[in-house]
């Protein structure tokens, strides 16, 4: 199987070509402001470099920052209508509550609150008002609002009302892009609704960008299914992923972690990914990034869905070093390191310059940093070490000294012998671990439900079946599915034996038939 993995970082865009799980070719190019032209450049450079190896590619996996940037920069978002099903409950706190005003302005078209929703035990709150959804759909159509986010109270438990409302909107307004909250979020109405609205506002952008990417692939002669990588270290077919772009907003750090796991052969370790401007630290458990399982803010909005548990530090190869008082970052020269950094002939002192002066890696021209004061060099290196040690200690799950896998373009900044950690593990192709992680991503399925008066084993079995169905729908090969996470949380106050069970399964990509035929027939 031949796979191309591409991952966009803040500073560089990386691409690799793997053949039978072996890195054959890799390139590192500069991330561009529009992201897309950087992706094209990486792809074209990789294909040129690979020559005949670039023929008969089975799949292309893309991890992109398009969606994150759109939210952070409040650009390219589609005005969205929010429909909430749950009246008379939740009436006072309307959709878009507690959003930053500039983001709300960019996204909010209007909202509708209709009667319905469920209780924790599955009973309806009140009968569902389908007519109200129908009239909302007409209003949305007449106003030309293309994106619709539908959220129903307790839909992670019972999704029927969201499905029903979605059908109504689709019938009235077939062109609308519709996001249903149960496909994204967990229990917690506002954070789930927030994720749903953000997702709906990204669907247009996702369709445009993925179509452009597929077109770019055709231009370089690649005809293979395209997958987008997601926050949890898995992938989904481009067509499906474009409907849930919010699931890709944290894919970059996740891809690095997956790549670190693959390149090191380790399943349980800390991963320190040092890029040009920032360092992301996460914890790998059974080869997957540990999930945050808590409210995470995206663009200033509280969300609760699958996000890796990360610590981000303003420390990268391009971070500026200033003396008296000694400070590193947060400003960084980013991709202009090779132009502005001292070892490359510039006149900005960066962390890379200091590291070269300290004798670590051979980069650029070491003579250009020979004049840096010894004190500055040793103090700055000590500061890098202390910053990493503190962050590692915050992230590691217990007192055990866990190994640290160093990846990213500036992985050489991670010193050996970090206090509180095990060995610093260095891997081949560390600079493009993110693209390797994208190429190696698998397909997952998940189920998160509340069970009442069901024995624990039966509840977990039922949740596992649901998670497997979900995975196969997302493109997994059923024979390779494995349970990777079981969370079983008994619920306070609820009567009897109530528990919330979350199960996640993971498996390999099922190769689409037409792709196999295309490969053998050509």
């Amino acid at each position, binding site marked *: 199987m031949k796979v191309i993995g591409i991952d966009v970082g803040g500073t560089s865009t990386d691409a690799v070509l793997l053949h039978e799980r072996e890195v054959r070719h890799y390139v590192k190019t500069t991330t561009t402001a529009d992201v897309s032209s950087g992706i094209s450049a990486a792809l074209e450079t990789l294909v040129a470099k690979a020559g005949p190896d670039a023929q008969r590619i089975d799949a292309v996996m893309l991890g992109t920052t398009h969606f994150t940037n759109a939210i952070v920069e409040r650009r390219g978002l589609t005005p969205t209508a929010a429909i909430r099903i*749950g009246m*008379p*409950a*939740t*009436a*006072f*706190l309307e959709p878009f*509550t*507690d959003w930053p005003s500039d983001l709300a302005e960019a996204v909010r078209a209007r909202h509708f609150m209709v009667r319905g*929703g469920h*209780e*924790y*035990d599955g*009973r309806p*709150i*009140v009968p569902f008002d389908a007519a109200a959804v129908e009239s909302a759909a007409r209003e949305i159509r007449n106003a030309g609002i293309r994106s619709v986010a539908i959220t129903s*109270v*307790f839909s992670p438990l019972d999704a029927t009302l969201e499905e029903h409302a979605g059908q109504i909107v689709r019938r009235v307004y077939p062109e609308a892009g519709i996001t249903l909250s149960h496909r994204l979020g967990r*229990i*917690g*109405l*506002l954070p789930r609704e927030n994720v749903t609205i953000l997702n709906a506002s990204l669907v247009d952008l996702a369709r445009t960008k993925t179509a452009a990417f597929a077109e770019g692939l055709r231009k370089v002669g690649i005809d293979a299914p395209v997958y987008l990588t997601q926050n949890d270290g898995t992938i989904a077919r481009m067509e499906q992923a474009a409907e849930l772009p919010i699931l890709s907003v944290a894919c970059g750090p996740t891809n690095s972690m997956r790549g670190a796991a693959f390149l090191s052969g380790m399943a349980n370790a800390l991963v320190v990914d040092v890029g040009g401007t920032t360092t992301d630290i996460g914890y790998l458990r059974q080869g997957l990034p540990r999930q945050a*399982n*808590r409210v995470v803010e995206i663009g200033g909005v509280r969300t609760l869905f699958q996000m890796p548990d990360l610590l981000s530090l303003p420390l990268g190869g391009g971070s500026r070093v200033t003396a008296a008082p000694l400070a590193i970052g947060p400003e960084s020269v980013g991709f202009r390191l090779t132009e502005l950094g001292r070892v490359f002939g510039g006149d900005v002192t960066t962390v890379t310059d200091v590291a070269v002066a300290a004798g670590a890696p051979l980069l650029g021209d070491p003579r250009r940093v020979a004049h840096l004061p010894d004190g500055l060099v040793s103090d700055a290196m000590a500061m890098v070490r202390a910053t990493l040690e503190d962050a590692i200690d*915050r*992230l*590691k*799950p*217990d*007192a055990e000294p866990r190994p640290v896998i160093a990846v990213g373009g500036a992985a050489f900044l991670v010193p050996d012998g970090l206090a509180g950690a095990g060995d610093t593990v260095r891997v081949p192709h560390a600079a493009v671990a993110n693209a390797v992680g994208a190429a190696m991503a698998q397909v997952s399925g998940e189920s998160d439900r509340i069970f009442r008066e069901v024995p624990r084993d039966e509840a977990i079995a039922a949740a596992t079946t649901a998670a497997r169905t979900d995975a196969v729908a997302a493109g997994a090969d059923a024979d390779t599915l494995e349970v990777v996470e079981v969370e079983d*949380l*008994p*619920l*306070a*106050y*609820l*009567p009897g*034996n*109530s*528990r*919330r069970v979350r199960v996640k399964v993971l498996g390999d990509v099922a190769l689409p038939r037409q792709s196999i035929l295309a490969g053998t027939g050509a």
Partner: protein
Amino acid sequence: MSGGPVPHDLEGVERTTLTEAGIDDLRVGAWILGTGGGGDPYYGYLCLKKLYAQGRMVDVIDPQDLPDDAYVAAVNQMGSPLPAEERLTDPATVTRAIREMETYAGIRFTAVMPWEIGGGNAFQPLLAAAMLGLPVVDADAMGRAFPEAQMTSFAVKNFTCHPLVMADIRPNTVIISEAADWKWLERLRRRACTELGAVAATCNPPRTGHEVKTGSHLYTVGKALRIGRTVRRAQAEHCDAVAALLEQERGAELLRGKVTDVERQTTGGYLRGRLDVAGLDSYAGSTMRIAFQNEFTVAWRDDEPCATTPDLICVLDQDSGEAIGTEVVRFGQRVAVIALPAPEMLLSERGLELTGPRAFGHDLDFHPLFTR
């Protein structure tokens, strides 16, 4: 009872208007007084912010200024934190509970007060106050968060335990006109609450001004505001928020360290469990185990009990000084475990019987941590 159809106008009584910053302070302070339970105040906080944006305000009054025969409504939202995460909260339902009580009991309330100052319930009386234009009394019935009705100051004082009104988002109202004692009241209201979707706004048995002055935990609203202000100021000044809080409230630091294990189970409708914390820095080598039943109940340091309910055991984020709840505390978090002194009234024989470690199934005497 005297009082009757006309509320006191409280003429000449000093009122302190809660500021916008005070709302933020209350959110942080009430969550800390929740001692791990009581639910995140976020939704009540959002509601109050919105009411302020609409031009409504809340005044706080000194309990000593209450006329003896004025009626006070002690209110809360009963139920489980999880359904509340989906059903949220709103000002109208608790307001309805109060109005229904007035109709049923044939009285008019002069003021409202928190039933439970710890956690999300700190905000319920403020929402009602903003809607009704009534002041909030600076006092509550728990001084923290507790899971059951008989753990209140009113039960310690053996005040009347009925009637009680529960209001629902639908046009459902439950009135418990009579209950044999506070434990019976707890059983009855809990069953009704479950039927209503495990979320119900509650107007507890009406209290007279005299009862509030003699039988509640005084100045606990001010305490929550003060705690929140102290922590938020320390955050803004990049100081040690935990140390600032301890100094302000004469609390005791029990341990600083990292959560190494959390175990949770539901039995009898409560979230029970324990967490283990391994000491770091000056506490390196020490370990702490903390038991909880919705709220933290007993802390053992190196296997010796070092703090027990009703003293407040609080697990705080070591950096921000903000509270971490028993439902969300997780592996790897860096925490400061502290204790704050319980309200004096809970240290009486009856107070300890209702809220001491034995009330939570621990075969332990109350561990006096603070000299009083």
